[in-house]
């Protein structure tokens, strides 16, 4: 699988909320090689030595663009949010294994929490309508991409922690009901670790396959420096360190030692 490192032009840079930004970059080869759930490693500014890992939200092979949506968390993402359409961005990618294991299933439910929602959009699209989404946010102001999911999913459920939009509660409340009544073939989840842990536990309880996308701080992003370790189990159930950038970011939830 080919990987690229180059300067690519930003074709659009929009704001989805006070702290969340939506970028599209023109990168023909990268877009043609990318899979759902893979990520890019981006230089936010010459001031920052390390790149920042950001998931691919949409891959547009016709227009040769990729879209990513990111939240301003610290200095790096703040500097990145200052970029405009027409600026170039140095990107390394596409990286990681992505949600390719999902190609073996006919229908899915994607479960996203907060800024974990974006990478699930391309996953949902790949099911051509045979996918439902359960999306959770802090409150209505933090809700993003809901219309995008409506466009490509059968059913979309939204939850907020404070009840200001959709169902009052957590994604796991909705997922539990869904698993009781109409279990999907597979679940794909991305969001805070505690949410992933609870989703994985539910999936196991109802005996449904589940894939989760993990986050860890990164150096190289390509599997060479071993800094992005996460705890997983090997065939014998023993704990080992896998690497989010190269073994993941998507893992079978059964393998992850939360």
């Amino acid at each position, binding site marked *: *699988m*080919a*990987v690229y*490192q180059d300067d690519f032009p930003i074709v659009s840079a929009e704001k989805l909320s006070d702290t969340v930004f939506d970028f599209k970059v023109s990168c023909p080869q990268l877009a043609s090689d990318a899979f759902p759930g893979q990520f890019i490693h981006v*230089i936010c500014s010459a001031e*920052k*030595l*390390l*790149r920042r890992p950001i998931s691919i939200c949409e891959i547009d092979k016709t227009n040769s663009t990729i879209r990513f949506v990111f939240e301003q968390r610290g200095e790096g993402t703040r500097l990145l949010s200052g970029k405009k359409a027409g600026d170039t961005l140095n990107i*390394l990618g596409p990286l990681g294994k992505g949600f390719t294991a999902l190609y073996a299933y006919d229908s899915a439910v994607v479960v996203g929490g907060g800024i974990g929602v974006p990478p699930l959009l391309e996953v949902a699209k790949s099911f051509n309508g045979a996918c439902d989404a359960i999306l959770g946010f802090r409150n209505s102001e933090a809700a993003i991409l809901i219309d995008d999911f409506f466009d490509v999913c059968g059913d979309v459920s939204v939850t907020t922690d404070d009840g200001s939009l959709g169902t009052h509660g957590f994604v796991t409340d909705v997922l539990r009901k869904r698993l009781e009544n109409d279990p999907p073939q597979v679940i794909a989840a991305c969001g805070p670790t505690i949410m992933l842990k609870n989703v994985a536990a539910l999936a196991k309880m109802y005996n449904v396959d589940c894939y989760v996308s993990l986050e*860890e*701080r*990164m*150096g*190289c*992003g*390509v*599997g*060479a*420096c*071993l*800094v*992005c*370790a*996460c*705890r997983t189990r090997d065939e014998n159930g023993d704990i*080992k*360190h896998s690497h989010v950038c*190269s073994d993941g970011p998507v893992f079978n939830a059964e393998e992850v030692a939360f």
Partner: protein
Amino acid sequence: MSADLSVNIAGVEFKNPVITASGTFGFGEEYNKFYSISLLGGISCKGTTLYPREGNPPVRIAETPMGILNSVGLQNPGVDEFIDRHLPFLSQHDAVIIANIAGSTEDEYVEAVRRLNGTCVDMVELNISCPNVKEGGVAFGTKPESVEKITSAVKKVCEQPLMVKLTPNVTDITETALAAEAAGADAVSLINTLTGMRIDIKTGRPVLHNNIGGMSGPAVFPVALRMVWQVANKVSIPVVGMGGISTWQNAVEMLLAGASAIQVGTACFNDVFAPLKIIDGLRKYLDENGYSSVSELTGGVEIW
């Protein structure tokens, strides 16, 4: 005619003086997806121990202005798997293969190095300077007596030229360099990382799970340059310089300070092509300034 970039270090011929640094370049497989690793002078492999190690729990990396701290803790598959699974790939390429060996005890170092005998490893880099493991590693590297002891023990069994990698976390690095030379080291390489720390003020906890880690990247370059200069003035074996090199200009400085070759590590995290850009820049610099060989630069600094 273009300048000769090749260097000979302890009998090992490098086609150019740019080597990728241990722990930042894996076993070469990942970066070979971007360019042929045969373009490199050499590859210093990930620090390898007699038995596999899982390394430290995450978080293992923290950022600092123009630098990073890491606390990987020598995660590696062990020397046997290095030989069986990774050496065959490296041997298909035309870069000098340097095995970077670490251990918790002298016996572990000796046995790991012994197992490299008869393999296609071209050179051994003795890592007695890893700051991220509880026992061993840097414990062997901070006192001249222990540097001398471990170097001579390893030298007895090592078939390849032996390069000892020094830690900067000492009062006078020339003492450990001289100890390595006295014990039979064929070359020294420096610097490994400088111990450092960051604290997350939101949680009141260190960013790194190991609390402290090793600092590298452009921020450490002046310290590394000073140490290479001091060591090169004291020892008569070749010195391989590293620490924060990210441009060809840095590489020229390091050579002028006394290095015979250089290693590039953290720079690859920012720019995967950094080692190749450094090779190209060096070549142009030599040609434009009328040098016939890169080794003419070594130790060329004219001090005030």
